[in-house]
């Protein structure tokens, strides 16, 4: 029984099983399709935000409570860029539309990379290997970052314009699927593929995976893990900013509290998925995204607690998460 389960894909079947159970419970195929696409899109966006956090922890045992600050930065930078380019967004030319979107996402990623570099140098460097102070300091940094965002963009909710070609929805059968969600889904999948290739097919990826498994050994072979770590940290913050930017377009109304709200979801995802592996993070993100949408439809009252209950169940079953990175030490 468990062999068969393992051969079929093991824990990676969980999202599929979730979708099947939901299909039976919901009954109507059209609502099921809408909800599933929404859940997968949400999961992909959360994956973008969470992947960096998970990798950084795997590589350096650094848990960054300020990670969600990058999400907020990305969201607000993208919103400002889009607002500044609103002429392009409204233009009938699809090329100008795409240019505006690409510029906004690029600006968000650049802001994320820069913020990540500063954060690593100023905040995290002095407290490597000291968990207690790490948690405290990154928490302090989150407060400061949130206040800076509040000071720059103000406390009132900011409207995020969407490019015209991503507005509206496609009708499949009698189910309406928002184009923006499909776009988020595709973008997330592309990023995952890119990360997967980077980690599994390149020399740097090899070093990163080796570093996650046994840092001291890689160091003693003469590789500079510290330098690699900055790279991974910046990559993670850039992805978080991209996730934030996409999220801003997804919800279309953002406040400075966005980061703190996402922090909890991101944490739940990396705990469920297991720290240190992007496969686990993707798995956790998809499960959380799907179940949030299904539960929100089936039992709205339960929606608030559903993530928490999900995490409890999975932790009881697998205390280290579903697919944690293999740790040599």
């Amino acid at each position, binding site marked *: 029984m468990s062999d068969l389960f393992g051969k079929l894909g093991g824990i990676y079947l969980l999202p599929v099983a979730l979708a099947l159970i939901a299909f039976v419970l919901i009954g109507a195929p059209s609502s099921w399709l809408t909800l599933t696409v929404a859940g997968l899109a949400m999961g992909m966006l959360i994956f973008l935000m969470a992947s960096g956090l998970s990798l950084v*922890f795997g590589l350096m045992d650094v*848990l960054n*409570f300020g990670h969600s600050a990058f999400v907020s930065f990305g969201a607000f930078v993208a919103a400002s860029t889009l607002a500044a380019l609103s002429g392009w967004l409204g233009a009938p030319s699809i090329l100008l539309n795409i240019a505006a979107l690409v510029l906004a996402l690029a600006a968000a990623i650049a802001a994320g990379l820069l913020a990540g570099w500063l954060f690593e140098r100023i*905040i995290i460097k*002095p*407290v490597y290997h000291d*968990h*207690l*102070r790490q*948690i*405290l*300091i990154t*928490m*302090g*940094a989150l*407060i*400061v970052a949130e*206040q*800076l965002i509040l*000071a720059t963009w103000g406390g009132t909710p900011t409207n995020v314009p969407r490019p015209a070609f991503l507005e509206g929805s496609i009708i499949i059968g009698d189910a309406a699927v928002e184009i923006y969600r499909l776009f988020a889904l595709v973008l997330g999948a592309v990023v995952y593929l890119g990360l997967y290739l980077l980690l599994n097919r390149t020399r740097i990826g090899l070093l990163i995976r080796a570093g996650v498994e046994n840092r001291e050994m890689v160091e003693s072979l003469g590789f500079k893990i510290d330098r690699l770590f900055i790279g991974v940290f910046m990559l993670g913050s850039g992805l978080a900013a991209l996730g934030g930017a996409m999220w801003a377009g997804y919800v279309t109304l953002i406040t400075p509290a966005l980061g*703190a709200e996402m*922090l*909890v979801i991101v*944490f*739940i995802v*990396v*705990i469920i998925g297991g720290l240190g592996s992007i496969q686990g993070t993707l798995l956790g993100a998809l499960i959380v995204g799907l179940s949030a949408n299904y539960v929100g439809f089936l039992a709205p009252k339960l929606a*608030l*607690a559903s*993530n*928490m209950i999900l*995490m*409890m169940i999975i*932790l*009881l079953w697998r*205390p*280290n998460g579903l697919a944690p990175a293999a740790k040599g030490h």
Partner: protein
Amino acid sequence: MRGTLTVKGAALLIWALLLFAPFLFQDVRQIEVAARIAIFIVLVASYDLLIGYTGIVSFAHTMFFGMGAYGVAIALKQMGPGWTPVLLGSAAGVAVALVLAVGIGLLSLRVKAIFFAMITLAAASVVLVLATQFSQFTGGDDGMTYRTPDLFKPATKLLVDAEGKVLSIAGVKMNGKIAAYYFVFVISAVLFWAMLRITGSPLGTVLKAIRENEARAEGIGYRVVAYRTAVFCIAAGTAALAGATYAVWLKYTGPQTALSFSIMIDILLMVVIGGMGTMWGAVIGATLMVLAQYYLRDLMEVAAGATANIPLLPELLNPERWLLWLGVIFILLVYFFPSGIAGTIIQKGDKA
């Protein structure tokens, strides 16, 4: 020993000032500050049991505080003023807090410290959302106001003079407000004393051993998970009691006063400022932070007004930016004075 004596002296002086607060400071706002300090000393000390003595980082401490507060608030709201709802409400609040603490503890204290921090953060945010959603019980975002036992009414005459009027001692009227203040003070003092005893007991020594070297403590034969869960429960129960007391004092309970994440940040700041791992540090940290909360904002307003003509400065000194500065101070403290005020004085003084 000089350092230890200085810190203990300072903490005892603060307690003495709190004891005579109604006589020393007769302004309503000052009494409010004194009561808040007393409550937060307990809250911070109970948090220090976790973070300072055992090395557990929890972000759910306000959640337990809020459970006590909401327990009393809901009981008083539903049953009307009286002592029964106060007792019942606190008992219920403490019970819920303990059950949740046992659950979270057994589920997650066996894994890495960092997991625990994340899980408590998630739990606290869920409880906060639940409390604002179930508005028929909790009053939602607005919270709820209620009446407390008659003893605490300002019109209650605690002591009367020969003519049947409220007796004044040293210019202070012996009315219900005084009774309420001493209710808060006595409970806080007793709880603080109890925690002080815990840290001095064999249990406290085991906790320190776990903080210093978990594997070795386990090796000597102490069941680390059981001890951690126990101290988590003690801290949770104490926080819930502090919350219940604060709810009686405020006559109002809402997310902002009992559950919000900003209270958690306050507690963290107080523990770090005062010094982790010393109960006396909690007294100093809580006092300084509460005073800063009430008076530093006014000062910032004055400073912002005075520098109105200089560019940038007034923007930075704007009272709304106060959390920004607290964050910066917090980071600097963790870098340069990780042992806080009390810890630094003790180290310096004892070396000399």
